[in-house]
């Protein structure tokens, strides 16, 4: 921070002092006097020297690799060129840095360059995976029929303006809804059990559910195939697929909600107990509302995993080209399985449809993720600005209401009853005083 900043802040403090007498400044900033105030400097900017080192090393590396490959040696191929250029870039760069600084500095520079390289390689690869799918989906996606028709009447050789994947979209929605209807109540109640009841059995439950996160999803599918399809229903169905997704998602949801519930501050619970509430009311009115955004995030991220996973439904849902609204009878395909089924065909149109379906799936997952980010991303008890305003308004109203009730009934008995019977579910008063952590 520069001197100008300090003086400006001191001035602001003086003004504040002038305006409101009770404010006392914590520190005294001495006046800078005659000292010249220098220009602002950007602290993290690279110096000219450093930039020339990078550029020079790059130029030298490219030149050396081209020379080696073009003239001096029998080396060929673009991959070899890239490897040689990269290695010589590191070499030249360390040489250039070593001209001006010691070994420690050289190592620091090289490692920084390597870290940046790792990041660039990783992020470009990951972004490229997604972008490649979206780009290849350009053939199929612009046709409106792709998301309004089924594949019932469209064969592999039909052009892209026939047939679509609405049956797979419906299948995905039905399957994930059944799975969520089981995993959300069961998973969150189990997580509450782990955190609020505790004891030896809870530890056992936690161990088992941690172990089950290791269950490969294909084995979950195999289990449902052997236990449900072969023994009971004797046919593949949307319900069997939903069971497989449930077996896979349940441990994920339990673990994620367990972590979120553990973050609920203990003083909130204690405050609630101190007011004489029961355990059940503490959980319902304090713990769950405080952890709500985290729980929603946990469920949404679990949903994203459940929607995207192909292997459990591969064995259980069956492949079909027609719309099936009934999860209990007949095969019901879902989006990931539809992708897999499309690209098994050698026909270019089917492959284009596969990429289109993958893009729809990807957009669905990204959409869910964005929703999770908007809702969650905040620790338990941290409120957004709007929420904070609402909570403040609600507690102000409560204060007025209580004051009125107290003045109306001087005996005080009614006021106590009123306060007991209507605890405000969303606004534990402590949440406002929690230390605000910067998000991320």
């Amino acid at each position, binding site marked *: 921070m520069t001197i100008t900043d300090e003086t400006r802040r001191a001035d602001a403090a003086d003004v504040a002092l002038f305006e409101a007498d009770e404010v006392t400044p914590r520190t005294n900033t001495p006046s800078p006097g005659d000292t010249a105030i220098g220009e602002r400097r950007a602290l993290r900017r690279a110096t000219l020297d450093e930039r020339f080192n990078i550029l020079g090393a790059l130029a030298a590396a490219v030149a050396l690799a081209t020379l080696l490959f073009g003239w001096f040696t029998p080396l060929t191929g673009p991959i070899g060129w890239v490897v040689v250029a990269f290695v010589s870039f590191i070499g030249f760069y360390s040489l250039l840095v070593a001209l001006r600084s010691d070994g420690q500095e050289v190592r620091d520079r090289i490692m920084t360059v390597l870290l940046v390289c*790792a990041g660039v390689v990783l992020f470009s690869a990951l972004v490229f995976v997604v972008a490649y799918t979206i780009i290849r989906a350009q053939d199929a996606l612009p046709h409106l029929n792709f998301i309004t028709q089924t594949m019932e009447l469209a064969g592999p050789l039909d052009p892209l303006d026939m047939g679509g994947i609405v049956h797979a979209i419906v299948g995905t929605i039905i399957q994930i809804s059944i799975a969520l209807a089981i995993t959300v109540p069961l998973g969150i109640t189990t997580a509450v059990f782990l955190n609020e009841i505790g004891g030896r059995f809870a530890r056992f439950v936690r161990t088992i559910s941690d172990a089950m996160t290791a269950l490969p999803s294909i084995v979950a599918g195999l289990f449902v195939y052997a236990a449900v399809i072969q023994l009971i229903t004797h046919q593949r169905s949307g319900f069997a697929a939903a069971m497989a997704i449930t077996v896979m998602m349940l441990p994920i949801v339990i673990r994620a909600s367990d972590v979120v519930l553990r973050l609920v501050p203990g003083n909130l619970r204690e405050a609630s107990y101190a007011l004489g509430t029961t355990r059940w009311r503490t959980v319902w009115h304090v713990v769950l509302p405080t952890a709500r955004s985290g729980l929603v995030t946990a469920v949404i991220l679990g949903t994203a995993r459940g929607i995207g996973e192909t292997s459990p439904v591969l064995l259980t849902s069956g492949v079909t080209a027609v719309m099936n609204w009934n999860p209990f009878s007949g095969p019901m395909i879902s989006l990931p399985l539809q992708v897999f089924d499309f690209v098994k065909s050698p026909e270019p149109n089917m492959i284009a449809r596969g990429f289109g379906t993958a893009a729809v799936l990807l957009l669905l997952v990204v959409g869910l993720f964005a929703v999770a980010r908007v809702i969650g991303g905040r620790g338990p008890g941290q409120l957004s600005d709007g929420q904070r305003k609402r909570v403040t308004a609600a507690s102000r109203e409560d204060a007025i209401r209580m004051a009125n009730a107290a003045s109306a009934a001087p005996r005080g008995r009614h006021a106590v009853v009123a306060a007991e019977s209507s605890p405000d579910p969303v606004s534990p008063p402590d949440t406002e005083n929690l230390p605000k952590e910067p998000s991320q």
Partner: protein
Amino acid sequence: MARPERHGVAVIDERRSLATRPSRSDSIFKTVTFSAGAVTVGIMLCVGLFLSLRASDALSVAGPSFLVEQQWSPETGVFGIGAILLGTFTIALIAMAVAVPLALGTALLISEVVGGRLRGFLVSLVDLMAAVPSVVYGLWGLFFLQANVIPVSQWISTYFAWIPIFRVSDASGDVLTEASAFTSSAFIAGIVVGLMVVPTQTSIMREAFSQAPVGEREAALALGSTRWGMIQTVVLPFGRGGVIGGTMLGLGRALGETIAVYMIISPIFTINWQVLKTGTNSVSALIALRYGEASEFGLSALMAAGLVLFVITLIVNFTASSIVARSRSGAESG
């Protein structure tokens, strides 16, 4: 604690029992949550028990040779997961060789080098990538990477053929160079699976690195250390548990990955040490390949294979989580 005294006479309250009787709503609450826990455990134990029971049919026929036999034909009674298990581990190890350096570098980059809004953006990007469905990675591997990685495979096998695993030769030992000998290999599947597990590993490692105590960081910098010196002496030792744990959790996912591997590899049932050569196999791809045509006993054999895979990932995951947990408690006390 001093007893309350009033007017010189000691007033001794009767001792109260601290045990409370739960109210009715509480006992209902307790019963409901307890039974939710019991149902969860019931489902999961049911999966485990069912798998073990059904697998035991096949295991009792095959005996210990199940782990070394390469052929897979349960109908004739000759079956085992020797080749398949090796293929699974080959793919997973290649995936780790691709993923761990990238994940480690990126985690350090995010937690130590970049700052401000870029850091928040990169963290979200990593988390988002962890949610991308595996079939998308599979598509990319099949339609893009396959064609573009073959020159790399050829290059490696040309210049590093003196290392046995990078050699590509046919049954008689002649070196193969044509492109068709390099398709659908464990190498390609490993790269795809590696990219798939990198985001998970990166986010665990970054989490561990960002928990390195600020005091020690500042102390190292104040003693004149460079940024890398500080990373070496403070961040990496504190984050060691996170690095190992993240690596092993990624390994667990890589071992169990199905669909991307199934789309890329061409399944074989013999041991293939040459990672660049066409043909490999993995347990989950085997299940996806054979479940439909399997008889009752064949299904039992597949369950045995699935059970072995489950036990392996279970061991890997538990080791990982115990390492992560231990390192975290150490970081807090330090």
